[in-house]
Structure formats: C-alpha cells, structure tokens
C-alpha cells in the first residue's frame, strides 16, 4: 500500500524547491499515513525546516522595484507558460487562423485581455480610433455616421458575457484529436464589455420598425466580415462595444469597436465594426453561405445556426495535466449557455454513471461563463471526470453520441458535448470520449 502511494510518474513532475522527491522517499516509511497527511507534511520540511522559510530570500532582505517601473504592468515572469497558442496543422495561413485561450490556467469567469482567444479571417489591424467611423444606414429615416467621440458620449452600459467561436470543440466531432482543454475548448472567453446598446443607435437613426427584419454588421478589415443578425436580437441585448475589462478593446479583438451579440457564436461579434445596415432579408454572406454552416447526415447544410447551447468543461483536472499526488482536489470548470443563465452543473468521476451537484460560484449571470467546483478525493485509481450543464430553460448538455445521432460527425460547428477526462493511475489526465 505504501508503495502504491509513491507517485510512479514523480519524474514527470518538476522537482519542487523543497526537494519534494527526496522528501517523498523518506515519507514512504510512514506506512498507514494518508495521502492527505503526506501533502500536509510537505509544509514541514526536514530536518530543521523548509529552506524557503529558514533562508531569507533576497526579496525579504533587499530593496524592491520602484513604482511605475512598468507603465503598463505585465504578468510575473513565472507566468510565461500561459499563452494563447495555435493548434499545429489546423490552418495553413496565420492570418486566417485561431489562437486558443489557456483555459487551464484561468480563475473565476473573466478572461484577461491579453489571453482572450483570437480568430481572424484576414489578419488583424491596430486602427487609429480618430479615423474610425461607424455608419448606420439602410431602412432608416436618417442614415448616420458616428465617430468614436460620438459613440463614447452616449450613455454606456457594461455587461459580462461569454464569447465562443461556433467551431469551438469542432476538432472532436469524430474522434479525440487534441490533448488539452486549451485546444478542445479554448475558442472561449468572457469579459466585461462596455458600449452602447445597438437599439439606441437604430432608434437614433429612425429605423423602420415595421419593415426591418434583419441587420447586417460589417467589419472594416480586409475581409470586410459580414453577418446577418435578426432584428429581435439586434434590439435585445446587442452592444456596440469599445470597452473590454475596463480598458479599450485589444486590437486582436476589434479595437476600437466591435459588436457584442450575447449568446451567439463569435463570428457575429463583428470586429473593427464600420457599418450596420438595416434590411428586410438575410444577406447570405460568405460567413453564412459557405462557412459557419453545419453539414447534416443527409447532405444538407443548416444555415444561420448561431446560438451557443449550454456547455461546460472541467478545467482542473483536465487533459494534458499531471496530478501532484493522491488526495484532495477541487474539481473546477466553466459552464455557459447562449440561452440564459446556468441553473445547475453536475460532475461525475466515474464516466457518467453517477453524478453529484457542483457548487456554482457567484456571480451567475445570463449568457456569461459560470464557475463551478466540487471537492474530490483522488484515491489513486483510474477515473473519468465529466461535467454536465443545465441552463434556465431546462436544457441538459448532451453526450457526444446524442449529438451525433442527430447531426452526424461532419458538421464541424456547435459541438457542445459533455467532455470526458480520463485520470490514469499515474496521475496523468488525458482526453477521451466516454458515454
């Protein structure tokens, strides 16, 4: 028993400063001691104590850095592992590609601006905000041009919403394809966006409330990305936003102006927004006639599939991770729904056979990421971790086989299946499909 307590893949874990491996070797003699006791004991190093405590470090015995040494602060040098990254082989050209957000390292529900996922169709630009214009035209009484000055003088609102690419988890419709949550679910972010409701601008231009059925949103970048949005959506909670987590949007996320369409897939959140046209028919632009269409088993494509249905994923422990030791883990992850609030999240540690209700951390906001967690004592055996979101409409996040039964395996978009992470006896966690 004491032998099995030794992490067999301890070599995989970087030795901790307190020389954990030699400590563990000595601890093997503590037969009958629990894994939790082992973890607890680690804080009391041998023989006199922990060198990190006994030997005062430079930062306790010297003078630190002055204020404003870095005019715009950046993360600790020890945090450089968390970066947004491409998935090798996914795309051929870096201007029409994706950089995935490192969900494995996030806390709470807010995505730091520098780690927000990226998806561009024809490269990104850093646009001079003084030269940026928004035109609202089409079926309006008075077509208007707004400068950033104009827009930022208007009464603004700030709201927290998730944004998820419709193709998030798209690589996993068939078989398991990628190793970690960064690549399975990393086309997902959540920020506090600040802007003016699109409805205010449409009303300011006197849109034709009788005949208007749709609006077209168009970007100022080379792709001139365009998406049709139903007028009900445009008048509901859609924002024309310039703010992101208290500062201006980042260039990669549409600086200085983007659309925020809560609950709807990211492609509709048009970046570098230059124009809103009011019309009475959908436009069937390239991004709704050739891409962002879901291929069904009968060879038809579903067009205008926009809503991101309820979904969740455990971020710790998750694929490509190594558990430190047996004992307590706070299983935690993210849940979200494009149809409203998350009502409940269930967690299974046995591949979906038995479930427990997880804790939801506040705030629980509509169309925003919700953090859930559940305590788990890993006793060293194999386990399969799953999470299952239920939103306020009562919709239950489906299993991958249930999705496939209706939509086949070739639709690419809108895979909101329950994610399974297998924990091996070695403590290594890997991506699997189990249902």
């Amino acid at each position, binding site marked *: 028993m004491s032998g099995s307590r030794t992490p067999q893949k301890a070599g*995989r874990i*970087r030795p901790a400063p307190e020389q954990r491996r030699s400590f563990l070797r000595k601890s093997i003699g503590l037969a009958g001691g629990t894994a939790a006791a082992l973890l607890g004991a680690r804080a009391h190093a041998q023989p006199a104590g922990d060198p990190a405590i006994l030997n005062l470090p430079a930062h306790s015995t010297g003078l630190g850095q002055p204020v404003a040494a870095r005019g715009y602060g950046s993360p600790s040098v020890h*945090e450089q592992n968390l970066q947004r990254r491409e998935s090798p082989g996914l795309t051929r050209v*870096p201007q029409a590609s994706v950089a995935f957000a490192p969900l494995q390292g996030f806390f709470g529900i807010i995505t730091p601006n520098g780690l927000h996922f990226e998806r561009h169709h024809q490269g990104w630009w850093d646009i001079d905000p003084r030269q940026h214009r928004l035109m609202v035209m089409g079926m309006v009484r008075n077509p208007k041009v707004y400068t950033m000055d104009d827009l930022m003088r208007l009464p603004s609102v700030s709201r927290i919403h998730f944004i998820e690419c419709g193709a998030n988890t798209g690589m996993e419709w068939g078989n398991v394809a990628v190793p970690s949550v960064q690549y399975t679910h990393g086309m997902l972010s959540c920020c506090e966006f600040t802007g003016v409701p699109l409805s205010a601008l449409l009303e300011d231009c006197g849109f034709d409330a009788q005949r208007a059925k749709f609006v077209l949103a168009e970007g100022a970048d080379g792709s001139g990305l365009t998406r049709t949005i139903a007028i009900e959506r445009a008048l509901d909670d859609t924002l024309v936003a310039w703010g992101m987590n208290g500062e201006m949007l980042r260039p990669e996320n549409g600086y200085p102006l983007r659309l925020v369409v809560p609950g709807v897939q990211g492609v509709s959140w048009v970046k570098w927004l230059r124009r809103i046209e009011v019309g009475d028919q959908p436009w*069937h632009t390239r991004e709704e006639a050739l891409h962002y269409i879901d291929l069904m088993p009968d060879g038809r494509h579903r067009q205008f599939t926009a809503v991101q249905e309820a979904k969740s994923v455990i971020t710790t422990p998750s694929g490509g991770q190594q558990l430190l030791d047996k004992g307590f883990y706070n299983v935690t992850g993210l849940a979200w729904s494009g149809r409203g609030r998350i009502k*409940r999240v269930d967690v299974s540690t046995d591949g979906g056979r*038995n479930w427990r209700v997880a804790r939801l951390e506040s705030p629980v906001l509509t169309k925003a990421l919700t953090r859930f967690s559940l305590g788990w004592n890993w006793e060293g055996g194999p386990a399969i971790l799953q999470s299952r979101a239920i939103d306020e409409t009562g919709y*239950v996040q489906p299993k991958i086989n249930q999705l496939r039964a209706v939509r086949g395996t070739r639709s690419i978009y809108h895979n909101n299946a329950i994610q399974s992470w297998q924990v091996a006896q070695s403590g290594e966690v890997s991506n699997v499909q189990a249902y």
Partner: protein
Amino acid sequence: MSRLISLIVAVLFAGAAIAQPRYPGIGRTATPEEIRAWDIDVRPDFKGLPPGAGSVKRGQDVWDTQCASCHGTFGESNVVFAPVVGGTSKADESTGRSAALQEPRYGRTTLMKLPHIASLWDYINRAMPWNAPKTLSVEEVYAVTAYILHLGGLVPEDYVLSQATMADVQKRLPNRNGMTRAHGLWETKGAPDVKNTACMRDCETSGKIASQLPDYARNAHGDLALQHRIVGAVRGAQTAPGPAVAAASPASNPAQVLAEKSGCLACHGVTARMVGPGLREVAAKYKGHAGAESTLAARVKGGGVGIWGQIPMPPNERMPDDEIRTLVKWILSGAGQQ
C-alpha cells in the same frame, strides 16, 4: 376613435423626434457618396449588385495573376485554402443538391456548398485577392466569378457573366437547394434538436472508452508542461517536444513585421516551403550571388514564375520600394537566422 388618437399621437411623436433628436449633437447624416463608398453588399435577390459584365477569358487572366498562387491553376488546390472547384456534376445542376455532400469521403469545395451566386460575387468583391482586398474592378469581379463557374463546368468558355445573366447562373448552381433553416439554433429562444436527461444514479453508460488521444496527438502540441502554471493543483504533463507551438507573440524585427503585414508569410514560411519556397531557402539559393538584392526586389514587385515551381507569385505593385528593399535584405540575411 382611440386608434385615431394613438395614430395622431404617433405622428406627433415622430415629428417631435425629427425636430428634437434624443441625443442632440451626436453623429451626423451620412452623405450619399459616403453610403456609396461603403454600401458594397450584394444580396441573393441581387440588391446591391452593380451593373457590369466580365468574360471567362478576362477572368482567366485575372485568375492566373491574382488567384492561382493560392487557389491553384484550376481552383483545385488545397495547399492554402479549401478547394474552390470540384466535386459537382451535371446531375447536381438539375437537382440543385450536391450529391457528393452525402458521401463522407469527399472534402467540400466552394462550388459544392454555394447556395447563392451573389454570396460568391460579394465575397470576391469585398475580400479578394487575399493580400489586396477590394482592389478588383467590377469587371474583374464579374470575370473571375465567370471563370470559377467555367472551371466548375457551369458555363462555356465564351460566356460573359453580367448583372443580367447572374439570375440564369443562379438557376444552375449545384447546391442551390442544399440549405435548410429548419432548426432552432438561429434564435436564442429556438427549440433544441438534441436532448439529454439529468440522470443522477446508476445512469446508462457503455462503460467503455470510445475514443482516446493517439500518441502522436499527445505529442503534437509541444511540451504541455510548458503550457501550464508552475504552481497549483496540477502540472502540465511532460510530452515529447513536437513541432514548436509558437505562442502568439509579435515579431520584433521590423523586416519581419513587414513580411507579416504584407502577406508574404501567407505563402512563404520562414523555413518551410508552403505555396512558395521558404524564405531561408531563398537566402540559401542566392547566397553570394552578385545582384541578388535587385533581382529579388524586382521579383517581389513584379511577380514571377518558374524559378521554384509553376505556381506564380503575384505582383506587389503597391508595395513601396524602400519596404521591398528592407524585406529583401532581411530575407537574404537569412530571415532572422542566427
């Protein structure tokens, strides 16, 4: 009576809204010229389609110089983007359903999917060519669209596509009937198509692992240990270093920034051959050659074909000479190679 009153109130209110805007001093009326400059969208009913025409023959010229480098001579290439042409048949033209979309073994080409000719015209007009969008004339957009249709066998080689003939072509598109909006995923209040239940105890499962990560995929995203925090409940697993997964970081060298900005790296890897040769391959080939700098500068400016293969490199006539010099010097110096 009450309806009349509310009508009068509505009219008065509308009148007041015009006289006194809700946000005085915010925004201004767009001029007709401004609207014309930006209102470029073309709808399936051809609203917004400018008058004009372009022949298949003219389209071939445009294609060969501006499109073939990425899409292949016949629109068949999948090197950079998914193929534009292929996978459709005469039978599809009559049914309006791409039969190949029902066969899982086929990839999907543009013509296999395209439901509206307007969508193709609009996209070429707004976003092509890749590194110089919105620079084609109306005639060129018609012509390139015609050429793509010709490559797909939909129109003969003497065809002229025009504002008047777009509707004829629409009637022959192989997948014009291949789309459906019969689903609940358009509106946030729509009805879901897939249902699960929230069973809590002894739920039905297969008890098997249906799919697991292949070894090559475990190792294909670089060392996961270096993609996780160095403290916390877990560490990243040490995986074999695959191809380096570059973190998204801006290029520091001005010439490299230029190469990215100008779209060079869309076709040339720094080391790897993509559509064109890797930049360091170019440096190696011209190492020690007198006059290499001006030779390459001329080729960047005017385009070329036949030195590295038969896919032509498009001209970059709009790129300033000093930027080309900076770029060429950087390439010849090994493109950042230490």
